[in-house]
Structures are given as C-alpha cells and as structure tokens.
C-alpha cells in the first residue's frame, strides 16, 4: 500500500524530488472532484518530463493525468482536435498521422501531454515559422477549485487564456485542449545536416535556412578557441509525398539502472563530441521517419538515468537576437573552460511570432540548452554564472528546464509574473512557484 504521507515523485532531471498525495483520475468527473478536494495545494502532473520542479508539489496533492487521454472530438476534414489533457503528443500522432495530420509544434520528446505542452507553452524546431504550441490552441477547459469549469481561448476570456498558456498549470487544472493540426502528405521528413566550423557558422546557417520549417544545431561544448561553436546544423521539412505511418511504439533501448557516474566523465564527453561531429554532413536531403528526426532520444527509455544517481541539471535560456552572438560565445566559453560540459549543446534561433502566454519562455532571439551532470556546488556555481550572462543580455531561463533559478532571476526574466499570480487558482501551487515567488503556501 502507498504510504499515506505521500509518494515520492522525481522530475526528469532527478535532482528535484518531493512527496505528495498522488491521485490518478480516470475520468474528467473524477478530476473535477479532485481539484475541489483542497486542504493542501493541488498540481496536475503529466508525464513528468519537466527537468526541475515545475511538475512537483511537495506536501500537496499531485493529480496524474495519464489516464485522461481520450479524444473528445476530432474533425479529420479540418484537423481540429479536442482531447483530454493527459493525451500525449505521441498518442495523438499515432491517431492523426495516418489521417494526414501532424501536431503543429512538438518538443524534442513525444512523451509530453497536451496539458503539459500548454502549461509550459513548449516550442520545437519549427519555432521560427510556427511559434509555440500555444499559438495553435483554439480553446481549453480549465477546472477551477471553486467548482467552476471555464472554457478559455484567444477570444474567450483572453486574459485568463494568456495567463494559462505557459502558466505552469497554476490558473486551474487543464481538463482538455483543442488544437489545430497541420496537414502533411507524408510521415517522413526530408532532412539535411550541415557542418558548422564556429559560432558565426551557426548564425549564417540559421539565416540561410529560413525556408526550412525545422532547424536546430548541435554544438560540441568542449571545443574552444577558434573552434568554439563547432557542430552540426540539422534542418528538415515534411516530405511532399510518401507513406503516412505512425511512429513505432516500442523504444529500441532501455537504460535499466543508473549509469555509473564515471561513464559521463569529461573524457567520455570529449570522445562522444568528437565522434558526433564526424558524422556525415552536406549532400542531398535524406528521407527519414518523423520519429527519427524529431525525437532522437525517445528511442532510449529512461535516458535520464544515463547521468547516474545524482541526476542532472539542464540549462535552457533565450537571449535577444542583437545580444546573441556575444552571449552565446560567453556561455560556450564558460562551459568549455569548466570542462563540466554535457554531451551536446543545442542552439536554435527563435522567430518573431509572439507567444500568446504571459509567462511563455520563447521570444525572438537565440536559445541555448545543455545538460549538466550534477556534480554538486561546482555545477550550481556554473549554472548561476550562466544565468548571469543570460540576464545581462536581456534574456531569461526556461522554467520547464530549471531547478536552480533564484526569485530575482525569475522576476527579471518574467517581469509580468504578477499577472499570472493574480489569475492563479488559490488552491493550486507548485514547488517551482513557491521557490521563485516566495509564496509560502
């Protein structure tokens, strides 16, 4: 039996954990009841792929949404789908791809619920053209702790909608989401890899790839000096014709237990980066299934265990375009000089399309992401120095990835946070929110 004091839940990076009473409603009426339960704060929890503590609620209630994965309504002639918040992007793709529809925006894993995608207003490799996930939400249902169920959207209660998209699940429990899918004529991608010699090469490649809907760069974070920014630039588009096959269900590999920490020592990372950057580049675009192009890590179940029992941090930030060259250089210099680097740094240019959410992370500029194995105080110091570089450049950190930002860093990056606080359902809270707002709830 479950310990009545609660169940320990760990977030994806495995550095944050908390004990909560866990409920797993199987139907929307159960969910509505659970939201009203309230002696302690409530938080919806989807697939737990947030790296830090936005998905945790120590001492409170956690409502797992995995069983709420039904499609409420689907119009396959227009691509408008309304589904319960616990349906994952992968679960939706397996239904919509054979019918010639694709999610408009997807993060780098398909193990993300629609509710989580809204709450974190996730972005993908196509942000420069399509904006964030929230740009494609037509409506959503919010369960509030006063027993009311409200429908919000860009036109229906637009302020509450703006507070909810990217609102970290705090304005009410998201019950269902209605989105507009994009039509595709094939489940395959046409993808091409370019070699980057340095950081300038990244900016040039991004500029030259404006007409490629999907772009992302992988950079060797240990390359220094003239080779700073050495890496690979991937770009892709939906193939104009071909089969309409959903992804394979089974992961190819599984990480059975925590990897020994030594496996991710500097030498391994150096070897991996050197090998990775030698993969073939240039040439004609190759045809690959969407899963291989969009979700390279989903083939390894529990890949987060590769970082060992102490877990890992992820830093993801965005800085405005004008400040980007200098800021990215500083960030790369920091990570390469510290030698703590992770396997890969991910770089991408965000486009100008505004996010609908008040707390949405993406804005026009360059985004920088990397994993850092948890080595204690040294890692925390590095994360803090990186955050300072980002904030000095007028940028901000991504709450969905964060486990360490201070209240000051949060408020500097998201100056309108009080608007979301004013829309927050009083019964909802999270470890993250208490940490960055000083709310003692």
């Amino acid at each position: 039996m479950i310990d009545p004091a609660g169940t320990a839940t760990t977030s994806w990076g495995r550095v944050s954990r908390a004990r909560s009473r866990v409920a797993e409603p199987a139907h929307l009426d159960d969910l509505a009841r659970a939201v009203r339960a309230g002696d302690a704060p409530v938080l919806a929890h989807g697939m737990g792929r947030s790296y830090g503590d936005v998905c945790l609620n120590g001492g409170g209630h956690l409502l797992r949404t995995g069983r709420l994965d039904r499609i409420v309504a689907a119009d396959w002639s227009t691509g408008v789908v309304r589904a319960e918040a616990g349906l994952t992007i992968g679960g939706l793709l397996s239904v919509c791809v054979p019918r010639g529809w694709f999610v408009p925006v997807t993060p780098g894993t398909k193990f993300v619920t629609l509710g989580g995608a809204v709450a974190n207003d996730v972005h993908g490799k196509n942000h420069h053209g399509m904006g964030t996930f929230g740009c494609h939400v037509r409506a959503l249902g919010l369960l509030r702790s006063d027993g009311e169920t409200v429908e919000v959207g860009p036109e229906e209660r637009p302020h509450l909608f703006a507070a909810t998209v990217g609102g970290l699940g705090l304005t009410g429990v998201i019950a269902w989401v209605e989105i507009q899918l994009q039509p595709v004529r094939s489940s395959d991608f046409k993808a091409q890899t370019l070699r980057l010699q340095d950081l300038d090469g990244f900016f040039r490649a991004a500029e030259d790839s404006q007409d490629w809907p999907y772009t992302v760069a992988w950079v060797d974070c240990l390359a220094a000096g003239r080779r700073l920014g050495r890496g690979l630039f991937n770009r892709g588009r939906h193939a104009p014709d071909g089969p309409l096959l959903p992804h394979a269900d089974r992961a190819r590999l599984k990480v059975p237990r925590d990897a020994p920490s030594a496996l991710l020592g500097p030498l391994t990372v150096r070897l991996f980066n050197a090998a990775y950057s030698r993969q073939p580049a240039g040439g004609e675009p190759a045809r690959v299934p969407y899963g291989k192009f969009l979700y390279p890590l989903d083939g390894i179940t529990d890949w987060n265990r590769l970082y060992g029992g102490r877990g890992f941090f992820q830093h993801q930030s965005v800085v405005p375009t004008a400040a980007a060259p200098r800021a990215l250089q500083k960030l790369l210099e920091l990570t390469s000089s510290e030698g703590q680097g992770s396997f890969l740094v991910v770089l991408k240019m965000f486009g100008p399309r505004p996010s609908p959410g008040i707390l949405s992370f993406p804005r026009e500029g360059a985004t920088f992401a990397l994993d850092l194995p948890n080595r204690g105080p040294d890692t925390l110091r590095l994360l803090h120095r990186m955050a300072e570089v980002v904030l000095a450049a007028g940028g901000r950190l991504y709450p969905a990835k964060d486990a360490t930002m201070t209240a000051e860093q949060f408020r500097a990056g998201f100056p309108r946070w009080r608007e979301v606080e004013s829309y927050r359902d009083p019964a909802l809270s999270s470890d993250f929110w208490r940490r960055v707002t000083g709310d003692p709830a």
Partner: protein
Amino acid sequence: MSSPSPASAAAAGKTVLVLGATSAIANAFARQRAAAGGRLVLVGRQQGRLDGIAADLTARGAAAVATLATDLADMDEAEPRFADMVARLGPPDEVLLAYGVLGEQAAAQDSADETRRLIDVNFTSAALWLQLAAKHLVADGRPRTLVVIGSVAGDRGRQSNYVYGAAKAGLDAFAEGLAHRLHRTNVRVVTVKPGFVDTPMTAHLDRSGPLWAKPEAIAGAIDRAVSKGQRIVYAPWFWRPVMTAVRFAPRPLFYKTKL
C-alpha cells in the same frame, strides 16, 4: 501505435459487445478494435463516461459506436435486457466481459454483505450474462468469440484475497464448461488471466516492480488469443509459470507465505 495485428485487421467491420466498457482493459481493447474499423457497443453504469469513451473510439476510427447505461451487477430482467443489447446491433461477433470489482479482502472478512457483493458482481452476474450471450450467439452458426477476463487470483485460494479469487475461480470453471459445451459450435470461449495491471482498480496499490503490466499489453494479449483461437491465456505470459509454481507449492510451505 504498432501496426494492426492480423486479428485487428480481420476485426474491420466486426461488432464487439463490451460489458464493462469503462474498465481500463476494456478501454484499451476497444481502442484496438476501433482503430481497425470495428463497430462497438459499450455497456457500463455511467452514461457520461460511456459518451466520453464513445467519442474517443469514434475519433480513432470505429465504424459505429453505441452505448447502453445499465448496471450489469443488477441481474433483474437479465433476459430482456440482454435481448435489448443484441437487438440494438444484431448478434455481436465478439463479446468482451470485462467488468469486476477487486474489493477489500479485509472488509469482506468482516461483512457477509461485502462477501456477497464481490461474488455476485464477479461471478454470479458474469456467469449469467455469459449464459445469455452463448444462447444468443450459437443460433446462426457464424463464428463468434466470447472473451472472459478472469484473474490469476482464481488459480489458488490465498489468504490475501480469496473472496475475489474464489469468484474468479468460479468464473474460470464456468467458462471452461461453456467452452466444452460450445466446442462443436462456431462459438469460441477465451479466458484471459491478467496478473497485476496498472488500472484504476489497483490505484491504491504500490505499482512499482516488474510484475505490473499496462492495460494495452493485456489488450494485445486478448487480440492475439482471439486470432490464434487460444482457450486460456495468461497475460503477460510469465504468469503461466508463476501460477504453476503457486498452484503446486506444497501446502506446508504455501501456508508460511503471506501471499
């Protein structure tokens, strides 16, 4: 999602009567049949939940979905109620009997009413619906399948849940006899015996550990059993050797365990 299995492909256009459609295993199985273009009739207690499941199955490709809100544990008027179900879609090609209650062993030990409830829901009413289904399905000689969700708990009485286990054991024997009786007809009886399944029925238990399976895995096992014409299926497969060991464990040893 994996590509449709041969049985799912053959299920296109088939009608499936799902008794206990809000159960997690039934839901997963119905999704497989819906994806293959099957027709479904969903029977359960709560109309609102049946409506939600019906919408989902329609979006996933079901050729048609009908719902019927009724309490299957209520055995009054069974004969006309079953006839009504059949009248609404014609005789089903498959019947999945998936409802049940796990209950609490401790509560049942203290209460004759609770003991009776567990036996009535899990055995008496189930046996009755199977009897009626068999009667309606043999008539026209077409190939049909009755799928019964049993449980590994029915394989040996154990102190931790013998009331539930006994009801499932009774259902097991009933299905075996029915299969024997229908052997010369075109109607097959399949008994599926799941072990620990991650469903709302077991939400109060600690579900970590290697023995736990997802409802989708059980649905896949049902699909394979139907297509292969297997009589009894343990799901996942490893429960067969496990339960063989449990069944044949010598009593002096067995009684020392807390199973």
